[in-house]
């Protein structure tokens, strides 16, 4: 290696070595700010100052296109030698436009005198500054020699902090790695990488850096920072998440995807937020679509989509240990290994446990027994996951992954049911094949749980059960860019899903076969204007009054970017949630509390219509990188209909009053049915992020909403509107991350949720055979989380103290735990 190259690399290395001191809150945001500033300076003719900013951006977070821009700036500035150096470095990253750039490099080489064309010579400062004496050159050479030894090491660390991009610079990279540097990209909104500004939905991205800086152990808690998100913690391992209202026990209107694979539990229609086969430390970013997503994702993406994207195999630190221990028996640990060359992999194992926030009953009561061995246990999960990737060439690749999770957790069930336990094993296997413009995905989701009420009255018939569920899914996605009266990016997808559920609550093995097709066209008509039209049709085996039927989900969005970094968005979309197995097939007899001889028959309904959403949305997103400010403002108007819920308890025919299966008399029957009432939800969401100064990120969001029951045929709704009173009118979140220059990291976040009134079904205290909806007023509450961390040994070791739920004890649902403080120590080691 030439001394010049060594020197240039040494300069990079020096910058990289400074990383711990130049502590950054969010590397991407910080790098983007430098990049934008640098480009502006270059445009103003301040070449050296601008390039200095670009180098700063590169040192914060390496990105090959920064090298390209530096090269172009030098070239435009009449300094072909420097330009050639940076073009060559750019070519090292094997960019898609390598051929074209190589031609430019050859042309520049031709412009240079032979002696300066030698790479070793090109970057010698003395060539541009002949006044530097020999002694200075020798000192620089010595410095370069010394720094060179640290180059590999430094770049390895840079790779760890920016795995995707750095890997792209050293191996086969995807096209998205060569997009606009540091521009926030998302894949959830359109099933392909695109700038957040181009997304047709309101979308929020939570980066892996943010997650790690929060120290939180629950993804649901982290989602509180998403504008409009409603996170309802019932217990340590039990949370319900919704967007824009309609949260409930067993919240079922948000689709959680893990690398594109749904974590939605179809048998129950619930997401077990605390039971993922990967750890939070493996997450690259979380993309949250606030609003309908059925046009691309089909059923259940009704109020939002949460798409977790994990670190690509082979990227990031080669190994990472995490451990935590805290009060309330909170303990856990994980190990992640990542590496490989041709075949890249990421493997992880993890364990976590913790006590409940509170218990519903004391021990050794004369009336109630606990059905679990350790009644204090709130969550225990042991997991393992393996993901491998192999690229045959630029166009063909395969990714295989699988995971297993042995879990004990809580779940707050519907109707008269309360706190359930789930004790069992979940797992998945997945294959992603890329063949040019076509991507295939196959997965198998499996869960096998014992479940039942955590507490049951002594002497009462037990409702413990078991569930065994398997979901097989296959999808083909074709994407193509073409020109026709503008630029089109067309996506066409086909999918099929087989669900098999064997569950004591629904009877024998039950199967459903689903199929879907979708198409989307992103049509860039003229430069600032993009029209996105999507349409999806889902075939469901029961949607036509118990027979196979179809649900259609169109979406039309217009995105206008009149100025760089500013986007205005208007969209119309529909979405639906299909009936779950629980809602279609349930058949259980729930004992009437205090009346052992009586039960309520709760039954599914195969003639259910899907829940429907019609949504109108206007949004603005502004990214002001020079200020480090991002603004996200959204207003929405949602009409929700056909909500599925349990009917009132209606008498059964007297001839059928005695049920021999339960040896009890049926007080009545409650049937899952569609609510004939329509609801309108209106609201506005504001999200701000501000990279205020080096190392300091501030974040704030606020959401206001109103849910009302619509008048029917001119008659105002007269009943108690549960969905209206259960939706908090105001939600506020604010927080910061500060990575100080002295290796201490600070972060905190604060959430406020306004008062709600929950309408829940309970037996009358005076006559348990009278079951009615009772109103429970829930006070406003505040959630506060904070973390203090200290980085040691060049960030290889981080120790932290994290406090979650530091605000006053509170309930987030009338039947939920008294949520209280958790304080724990965290240790992270990246050897």
């Amino acid at each position, binding site marked *: 290696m030439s001394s010049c190259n060594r020197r240039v690399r040494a300069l990079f290395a020096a910058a990289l070595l400074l990383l711990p001191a130049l502590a950054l809150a969010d590397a991407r945001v910080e790098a983007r700010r430098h990049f934008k500033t640098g480009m502006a300076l270059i445009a103003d003719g301040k070449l050296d100052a601008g390039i200095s900013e670009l180098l700063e951006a590169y040192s914060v977070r390496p990105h090959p296109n920064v090298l390209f821009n530096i090269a172009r700036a030098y070239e435009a500035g009449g300094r072909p030698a420097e330009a050639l150096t940076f073009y060559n470095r750019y070519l090292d990253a094997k960019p898609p436009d390598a051929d074209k750039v190589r031609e430019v490099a050859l042309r520049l080489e031709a412009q240079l005198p032979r002696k300066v064309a030698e790479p070793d010579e090109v970057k010698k400062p003395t060539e541009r500054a002949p006044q530097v004496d020999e002694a200075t050159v020798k000192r620089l050479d010595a410095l370069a020699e010394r720094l060179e030894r640290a180059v590999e090491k430094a770049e390895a660390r840079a790779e760890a902090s920016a795995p995707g991009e750095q890997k792209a610079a050293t191996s086969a990279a995807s096209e998205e790695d060569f997009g606009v540097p540091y521009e926030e990209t998302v894949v959830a909104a359109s099933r392909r990488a695109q700038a957040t500004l181009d997304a047709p939905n309101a979308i929020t991205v939570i980066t892996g850096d943010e997650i790690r800086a929060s120290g939180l152990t629950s993804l649901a808690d982290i989602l509180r920072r998403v504008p409009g998100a409603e996170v309802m913690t019932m217990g340590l391992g039990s949370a319900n998440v919704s967007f824009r209202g309609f949260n409930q026990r067993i919240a079922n209107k948000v689709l959680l995807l893990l690398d594109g694979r749904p974590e939605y539990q179809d048998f129950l229609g619930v997401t077990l937020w605390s039971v993922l086969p990967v750890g939070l430390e493996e997450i690259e970013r979380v993309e949250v679509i606030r609003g309908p997503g059925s046009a691309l994702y089909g059923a259940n993406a009704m109020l939002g989509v949460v798409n977790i994207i994990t670190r690509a195999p082979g990227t990031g630190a080669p190994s990472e240990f995490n451990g935590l221990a805290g009060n309330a028996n909170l303990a856990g640990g994980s190990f992640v290994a990542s590496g490989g060359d041709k075949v890249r992999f990421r493997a992880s194992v993890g364990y976590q446990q913790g006590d409940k926030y509170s*218990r*519903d009953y004391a021990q050794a009561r*004369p009336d109630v027994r606990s059905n679990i061995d350790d009644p204090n246990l709130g969550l225990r999960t042991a997991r393992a996951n393996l993901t491998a990737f192999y690229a045959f060439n630029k166009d063909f690749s395969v990714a295989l992954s699988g995971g297993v999770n042995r879990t004990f957790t809580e779940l707050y069930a519907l109707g008269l049911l309360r706190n359930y336990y789930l004790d069992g094993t979940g797992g998945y296997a997945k294959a992603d094949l890329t063949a040019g413009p076509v991507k295939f995905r196959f997965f198998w989701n499996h869960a096998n749980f014992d479940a039942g009420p955590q507490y049951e009255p002594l002497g009462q018939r037990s409702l413990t059960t078991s569930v065994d569920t398997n979901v097989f899914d296959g999808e083909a996605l074709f994407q193509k860019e073409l020109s026709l009266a503008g630029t089109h990016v067309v996506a066409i997808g086909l999918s099929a899903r087989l669900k098999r559920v064997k569950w004591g609550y629904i009877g024998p093995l039950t199967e459903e076969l689903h199929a879907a097709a979708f198409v989307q066209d992103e049509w860039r008509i003229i430069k600032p204007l993009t029209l996105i039209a999507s349409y999806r049709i889902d075939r469901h085996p029961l949607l036509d009054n118990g027979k196979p039927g179809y649900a259609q989900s169109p979406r039309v969005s217009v995105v206008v970017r009149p100025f760089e970094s500013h986007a205005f968005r208007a969209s119309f979309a529909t979405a639906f949630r299909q009936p779950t197995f629980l809602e279609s097939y349930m058949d259980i007899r729930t004992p009437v509390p205090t009346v052992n001889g009586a039960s309520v028959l709760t039954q599914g309904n195969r003639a259910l219509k899907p829940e429907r959403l019609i949504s109108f949305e206007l949004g603005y997103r502004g990214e002001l990188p020079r200020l480090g400010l991002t603004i996200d403002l959204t207003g929405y108007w949602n009409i929700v209909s056909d909500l599925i819920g349990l009917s009132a308890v209606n008498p059964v025919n007297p001839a059928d009053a005695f049920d021999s299966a339960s040896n009890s008399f049926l007080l009545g029957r409650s049937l899952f049915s569609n609510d004939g009432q329509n609801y309108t939800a209106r609201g506005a969401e504001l999200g701000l992020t501000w990279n205020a100064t080096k190392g300091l990120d501030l974040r704030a969001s606020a959401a206001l909403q109103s849910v009302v029951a619509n008048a029917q045929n001119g008659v105002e709704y007269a009943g108690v509107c549960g969905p209206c009173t259960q939706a908090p009118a105001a939600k506020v979140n604010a927080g910061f991350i500060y990575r100080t220059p002295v290796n201490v990291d600070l972060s905190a976040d604060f959430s406020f949720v306004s008062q709600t009134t929950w309408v829940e079904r309970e037996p009358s205290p005076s006559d348990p055979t009278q079951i009615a909806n009772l109103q429970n007023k829930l006070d406003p509450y505040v959630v506060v989380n904070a973390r203090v961390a200290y980085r040691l040994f060049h960030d290889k070791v981080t120790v932290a103290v994290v406090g979650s739920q530091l605000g006053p004890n509170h309930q987030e649902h009338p039947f939920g735990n008294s949520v209280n403080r958790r304080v724990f120590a965290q240790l992270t080691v990246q050897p």
Partner: protein
Amino acid sequence: MKNVLLALALVLGGCEAPTVFPGFDKRQNLSLGRIEGQVIVNSTARGRIILFLYDATRPPPPLGTGRPLTFTVVSSEAVFGAAIEGDSGPFTAPFAFSLVAPGRYLIRGFVDANADFIPWYGVTADTTEGDVGGAAIDPTTRASRIVEVGVDEAGNPVPALDVPVSFADSARLPIDRPIFSVVGGMSSVTLSGTPVVIELQATPIDEGVMTQPTPAFLVRFLDDDGDGVPDDANGDGIPEVWPRVVVRKVQQEGSPLLDENDLDKNGVVDATGVDYEHAAAASDGLPDVVVLAAGFNVAEYASQLVDGTTGRVKTTPTAVPRLKLVLQPRAFDASTPAGPQPLKAVPIGRYAITVIQQTGQTWRVPNELGLEVPGLPLVPSQGFVVQVQ
């Protein structure tokens, strides 16, 4: 710094159990006990066993008019298993009443030999011919036993365990419930200033879930003092008899199945309700249980109720198909059953007639059969009401 580290260590090392927090759930905020025991059946009857729990202060008919607080079912399979026909046992099986508040209770039950008991309707929620009665009794004295869910020194409920409930063929019911209709096909009778006599006719109903083909009134004179002479405890010159009758005011509007001031149907006077002026004083400010002065005139059966040889009243009842009911234009507040208070005037409104047999079987008119209740036969005579104007 040391203090900070110490505090941190204490926080992190804390292993305290989660606090108990019941939340808003009404049930989770209660501290209750339970009653468990065994049913012991000496009978050739077969069927599921229905057990009722009563407040000891409000016993069921024939001792009172109390209604069950709760009930439970013991399956026939659990009790009798594969026992051969004719085997009279004893057979045993466990039972439980869950979530029972501290208090004193009575347990009654029966073997539902006809499998025709349905708890949700008045017309089906009683014993019928062939059922075998039972109760929690003291094993020594064979007297009815009061089962107590106590409270320990810490204030925690103490469950009542190992409670035996016995059933025997000696308590087999010989007859169906006293189903009646008012002779004459009237839908109502009006009571104003003078007494009214109506005649009740035992009326078999054998349709749908109602399979009671052999109703009758079991009549006998009361002779609690055992002197062989009919008792006349109230001194009105009319001897008291079984069956007894209660004519109670029902709610003013809406379903006639709900008694006034007991709209939750728990047999206990509601906390708030209608109050009437008493004869002795102004209204007491409390809801009243308004009943009419009424009784059966059994003069036409008197000779059948007395032993022709000894001249003493018979101790066994005589089944008769008809009874004359005398309704007096006088009303009482029976909210204190032991000392009903006369009212100044007879409250205007609708009244229901309830006949109570010595066996504890009852029948009330109006009932669900007089209304259009899905799944039950419609019997217009069962909609009869007494109207006071």
